[in-house]
């Protein structure tokens, strides 16, 4: 029973983190129609900066802010100079460009920093709250609150703000958006900055748990992909629910079946949802003119 409880509660906590990883991908998808496979790599670079600052004695808050700013900056640069210009060859070419950027960054990290695992500071040590037999640390609670707040803010931003609506317009009907004076290229570049910052935030909560390596954040971004596909690309609330479902399901798989089958179960969930409901559990069915 304890194992079940632990799987359930930690699944919900990590599920929100998966949702945040997914939402970082949705920001670019909303404007450009593809996802970035380099999110984890952008986060890793920003986290290495944070790691060195921490080694130099910087307080956690400064480390956290630096990681987020570095993520935003790097994301913005990659979007501005590599991926957005690549969109003229099509969205699949742009998506492949993000893969190219990702493996280049990984290669550079391996060459200049090394692939060994490094400990990353946590947002808070010690038990903050106990639910049944499960103790949650301050880092878990802070992660839950921060992820929840960011996801809620983005959901509101996409629905209620002019920028959010303009982002949707650029993806749904680029010509109409252009005629209405929406600066689509600027919005695309901005989406990369926001997405990079979100990658930094996600990394801040992942690195203390999995240690910092060139690929440790990437491993969680795959769960983020799954969260947005299962939840539906156009539904932030869907990504949250799907993230939690994925968190609980993969925890139960690890606890009761085999930890090595977690990624296989993720793949099966992804394919099942794509086959039964391609728009995701909470997404809108796209209407296409034939």
């Amino acid at each position: 029973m304890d194992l079940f409880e632990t799987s359930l509660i930690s699944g919900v906590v990590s599920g929100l983190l998966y949702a945040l990883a997914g939402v970082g991908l949705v920001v670019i998808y909303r404007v450009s129609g593809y996802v970035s496979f380099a999110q984890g790599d952008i986060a890793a670079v920003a986290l290495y900066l944070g790691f060195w600052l921490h080694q130099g004695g910087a307080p956690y808050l400064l480390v956290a802010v630096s990681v987020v700013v570095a993520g935003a900056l790097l994301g913005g640069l990659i979007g501005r100079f590599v991926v957005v210009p690549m969109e003229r060859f099509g969205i699949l070419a742009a998506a492949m460009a993000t893969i190219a950027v990702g493996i280049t960054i990984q290669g550079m990290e391996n060459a200049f920093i090394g692939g060994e695992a490094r400990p990353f500071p946590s947002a808070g040590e010690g038990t903050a709250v106990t639910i049944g037999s499960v103790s949650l640390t301050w880092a878990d609670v802070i992660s839950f609150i921060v992820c929840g707040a960011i996801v809620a803010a983005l959901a509101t931003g996409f629905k209620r703000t002019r920028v959010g609506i303009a982002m949707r317009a650029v993806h749904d009907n680029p010509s109409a958006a252009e005629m209405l004076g929406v600066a689509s290229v600027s919005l695309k570049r901005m989406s990369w900055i926001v997405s990079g910052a979100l990658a930094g935030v996600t990394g801040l909560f992942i690195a203390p748990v999995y240690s910092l390596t060139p690929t440790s954040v990437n491993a969680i971004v795959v769960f983020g992909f799954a969260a947005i596909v299962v939840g539906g690309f156009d539904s932030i609330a869907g990504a949250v629910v799907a993230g939690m479902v994925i968190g609980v399901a993969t925890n139960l798989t690890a606890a009761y079946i085999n930890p090595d089958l977690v990624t296989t179960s993720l793949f099966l969930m992804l394919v099942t949802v794509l086959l039964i409901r391609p728009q995701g559990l909470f997404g809108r069915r796209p209407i296409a003119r034939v």
Partner: protein
Amino acid sequence: MSTTSAAPATTNGRPPRDERVAASLRTGRGILLPGRILLLILVAVVVLIAGVTGDNPLKYSLIIGTIYAIAILGNNAITGTLGEINLAAGAFMAIGAYTASYTLSRGWGLATVVLAVIVVSLLLGLLIAIPTVRLSGLFTALATFALAYAIPDLALALSSITGGDAGTAITPPIIGDTLIDGSATELLIAVVVLFVVLAAVNVWLFSRSIGSRLLTVGEAPHAARSFGLRPLLLKIGVWTWAALLGGIAGLCYALAVGFLNPTVFTVFLSISLLAGGLVGGPRSVVGAWLGGLLVGTLPPNIQSVVPASSTGIVFGVVLLAALLAGSGGLGQLLERTTIAPLMRRKGR
């Protein structure tokens, strides 16, 4: 990758020869078929001479490069005809490699092992293809990315077959008096002949009506349905063909390296194969070979400059360059500068 063009017809109802050559270059079909086969044989001769006369490291890297080329040939069928991104080419190789490893360790003969690899690759390929062909574009890339991510963990979970973390040694088959491993000239000859045969079948099939059907399905799916084609069935065929070639490449890979570890079949391998295919040109069989040789021979030969763990830099830059250069790749460049002028001259 649209190949549709309106060519002015001549009096006999056929487009001018120059137009046919240009169309053939774009599509990978048509009038350049004999030239493509000739080019394939020429590259095979060059690879064989280099491998037989060169030292063992060169021979080994040519073997690995040609094995990757077989996998790329399959992957190119998906990229070049259906226009989809498959990020799980390494998964298909893993299926073939582990089937070979398991059956060889049970003392099966090489012919039975090959048959087992073909059957298992076809069956598992079909199993993966049936759900995957219902997806398209970004969703295909995401689903195959998740599959590629799952493969190393799945290999750990199936430790009774794969040896888990510790990996598994391949029992090398003996043919006559020769032990078949990565240093055997016989293996180099075998993989080169295998590639030439598979590539010739590929280019011949693509030049038949099945090729135009596949291109229609890939480029104009709605029109394909209107013409009475069955896109899902054709797509399943392409994906299964890719799985078969991936499985055969996996079998050869297992024989060449002699030891399998789950960390071999990562997303990075699949991305490298995709990059190799794009650099070589997704509609050119010679391009697939050049792409495979690039993926197989470049990392060991630049290790003094770029360490093995950092080859991502090279493949990342190469992939970006291939995307910027367009869809034709090195293969089309080679065809454009060698066989296309010959075919044009022949017509005058």
